[in-house]
């Protein structure tokens, strides 16, 4: 049901993304992203990983006016620019569900440190998009890695860190020019060590994991009350409470309009978080950094909750001590939704490589993960957790033409993204650097000539 609503909403806004929003409350900060104009492009003769779980050899992808029109063999289209993709691979644009580009940009000076509102353990009222610096050189570097969309999240210092925002990976002067049209907001929550360390260090709650849980539950009780009073007032019963940005966000989660992205490493803590979600009637869209997802992969499948994981980060803190390379593969074979995420300006440039390391590790333990399955970890499954899989994440007719042409198998260390299309427009061309974006910050440095290539 919710998915359908999102799809209808998305279609409406896409059709009329310049039209005046009806509700004042949503008038601010809406997307004003406009796809760059593009005609028709026919990429021919590639190995196509569609993102739907299929691999099509020697196949074509036809893009017209920013949309994928057809995927198959022997396509033709009058006036289309022909791109010879023989020996090359095509995949959907890569999507990173966990990025801090713009909120913790390069250079990482104190002046730029805008990702954690470390003033209270619950700051549901803050929105990551209000911290995004669009000139972060990391966006361009990520584009060269094939990334066409990403979610920018607040950090994990707080139990409830605020709203995340999904962006198209396009240059903009403001975040509104980058916002993914009609994408739902994300909501950042954090388990475990970080909140208790940050606030415990100041001698205020939470200082323990049980303090963490009490903190979430207290916030949801308050939010449910606010939501109920708002609903009653709308029915003419009683006075509406004063608008409260924190409770408005939390109520949006309870109503299913805002998707929960929960930083949580340990399996036992993920299980507790799933119970809290049951208690208050919300859904966890994805656990992030889910280092122990392999220990509870069956629970994830049952709850339709994705696990967003690194390929191999482990041990940098206690809750990451049980990290294993095969994590994502074991989540996959349990029938749950596996995602590879970056949380890093370097990692986001090579999500295909991080995925490849998992494929290899799984193979050594006798688990075969096919490329057409693994590609979903950085495309379709990522889109699903962000609530944008109706419009991107796979190469299917009618979807946004967010497409990467790789100069070989994307899971080889020797392969690079050769061309990246965003809504059908050529956004990056490895062989023609003059067309590639250059951020304000890197003007005049070698980075603009080479670093981000």
């Amino acid at each position, binding site marked *: 049901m919710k998915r359908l609503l999102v799809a209808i909403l998305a279609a409406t806004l896409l059709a009329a993304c310049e039209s005046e929003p009806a509700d004042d409350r949503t008038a601010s900060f809406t997307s004003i992203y406009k796809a760059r104009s593009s005609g028709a492009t026919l990429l021919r003769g590639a190995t196509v990983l569609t993102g739907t779980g299929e691999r099509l050899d020697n196949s074509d992808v036809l893009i017209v006016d920013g949309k994928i029109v057809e995927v198959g063999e022997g396509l033709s289209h009058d006036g289309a620019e022909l791109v010879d993709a023989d020996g090359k691979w095509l995949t959907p644009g890569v999507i990173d569900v966990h990025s801090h580009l713009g909120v913790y940009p*390069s*250079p*990482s*000076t104190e002046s730029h440190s805008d990702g954690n509102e470390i003033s209270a353990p619950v700051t549901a009222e803050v929105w990551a998009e209000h911290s995004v610096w669009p000139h972060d*050189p*990391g966006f361009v*570097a990520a584009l060269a890695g094939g990334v066409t969309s990403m979610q920018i999240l607040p950090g994990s210092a707080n139990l409830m860190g605020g709203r995340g925002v999904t962006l198209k990976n396009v240059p903009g002067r403001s975040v509104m020019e980058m916002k993914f049209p009609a994408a739902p907001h994300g909501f950042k929550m954090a388990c475990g*060590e970080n909140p208790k*360390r940050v606030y415990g260090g100041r001698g205020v709650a939470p200082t323990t994991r049980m303090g963490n849980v009490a903190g979430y539950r207290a916030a949801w009780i308050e939010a449910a009350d606010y939501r109920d009073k708002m609903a009653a007032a709308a029915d003419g019963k009683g006075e509406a409470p004063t608008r409260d940005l924190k409770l408005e966000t939390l109520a949006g989660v309870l109503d299913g309009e805002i998707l929960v992205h929960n930083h949580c490493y340990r399996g036992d803590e993920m299980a507790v978080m799933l119970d809290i979600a049951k208690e208050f009637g919300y859904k966890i869209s994805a656990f992030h950094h889910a280092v122990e997802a*392999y*220990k509870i*992969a*069956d629970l994830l499948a049952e709850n339709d909750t994705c696990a967003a994981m690194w390929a*191999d*980060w*482990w*041990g*940098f*803190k*206690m809750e*990451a*001590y*049980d*990290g*294993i*390379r*095969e994590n994502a593969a*074991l989540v996959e074979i*349990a029938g749950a939704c596996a995602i590879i995420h970056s949380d890093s*300006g*370097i990692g986001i*440039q*090579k999500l295909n*490589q991080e995925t*490849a*390391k998992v*494929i*290899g*590790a799984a*193979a*050594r*333990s*006798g*688990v075969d993960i096919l490329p057409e399955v693994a590609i979903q970890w950085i495309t379709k499954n990522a889109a699903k957790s962000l609530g944008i899989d109706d419009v991107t994440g796979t190469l299917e007719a009618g979807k946004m033409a967010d497409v990467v042409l790789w100069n070989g198998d994307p*899971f*080889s*260390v*020797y392969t*690079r993204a050769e061309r990246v299309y965003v809504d059908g427009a050529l956004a990056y061309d490895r062989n023609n650097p003059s067309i590639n974006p250059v951020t304000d*910050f*890197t003007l005049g*440095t*070698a*980075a603009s*000539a*080479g*670093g*981000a*290539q």
Partner: protein
Amino acid sequence: MKPLIVATLLGLLTSVSAAQTIAIVGGTVHTVGPQGSIENATVIITDGRIAAVGSDIKPPDGANVIDASGKVVTPGLFTPDGYLGLVEVGLSAGPLDAVQRGEQFTASFDVAEAFNPRSTLIAINRIEGITRALIVPRAAEPDLLGYTSNVISGLAAVVNLSGNTNSLDRRAAALVVNLGEGGVAYAGTSRASAQLLLRNALDEALDYREHGDAFERGQHRDYTLSLTDLEALQGVIAGDIPLFANVDRASDIAALIRLSDDYNIRAIVSGGAEAWMHAEELAAAKIAVILGPADNLPANFDRINARSESAAILAAADVRVMFADGDGHTHNARNIMQSAGNATVAGLSWDDSLRAITLTPAEVYGVADRVGSIEVGKIADVIIWPADPLELTSYPDQVFINGKSLPMTSRQTLLRDRYRDITSDEPPAYRN
């Protein structure tokens, strides 16, 4: 199928004593030595050393023959920077033995004394091909008592990942110093003060070399450094111990080159985001560079010209390059082959990339007479790979250190195997 074969191999090999002869036959051997790469080659290991390498060698009678047909054989990999055996968990969970703080010991602070060969990180990195490592002291934020780190962090050591009690290969393999933005934090106000502190320390070491006896007799001025630190610096001014400088900005690298020239000492650049801008000068000064080639972002103003092609540019100028995992993430030292593979795309040759993670660190840290390549007489650190070792999906079938075949298990593979069948009714704690 493959895991079964490996398991069988392992069963055979663990029963072989080091004194026995092992013959690895049929693989493509990249010796990284004068013999280059040899197809369908045999490597003979006797008493822990390489006894023979070549394409026309028959395994001696009684040798334990390992079929490596269709596989790739390389020297063990050498990670040139990190804290293996000096840390278990990075944050809020026990000590980080690499950290130097306080004025009492700087140059003489020696991480070799803290190395733990049984750290879980050792096996986890070993099964992925890392056989030797430089372990380094490091600077860190001031502690709760206000002790700060110094421009000079102390002595680094070369260790092997055999897990044996005696895993130290070479003490005092380098002296770690912090220049550039890092140095500012520990020197006070400016990178100029970091240079001054370092030069003062070298001047005092030189003076002590000349006047140590007079000093002992109380007939010489006092030094600002302690005697143990002055002793530790003697190897540096003699040219035996290289300065391992954490430094990124081109101008700071130029200052390091001047310093190494002024004192006629050896140096190594670690980080080196802008080292490519002084490639010629670094080559002339014989200064090697440790890079993370994927580290192409202007993460701070010292790294404003960071770029992916650094390794290729440096190598083209004849600078010796090495790779450390991107952010000094010791737990994943095992990812240096990914860095090496990526460097080939930016223009480094495949042979040079493999050399960067094997022989070059051995040379730079003074142990190339023993390890770093598959050459007759060297210690047998050998890896059998199913395919190209730089490829992301390639994990070792078998690792040998000191000629011994080591178990291909770690705490992580045990965790994996315990949870692999998520549908099992048996509680995980009983799945042993």
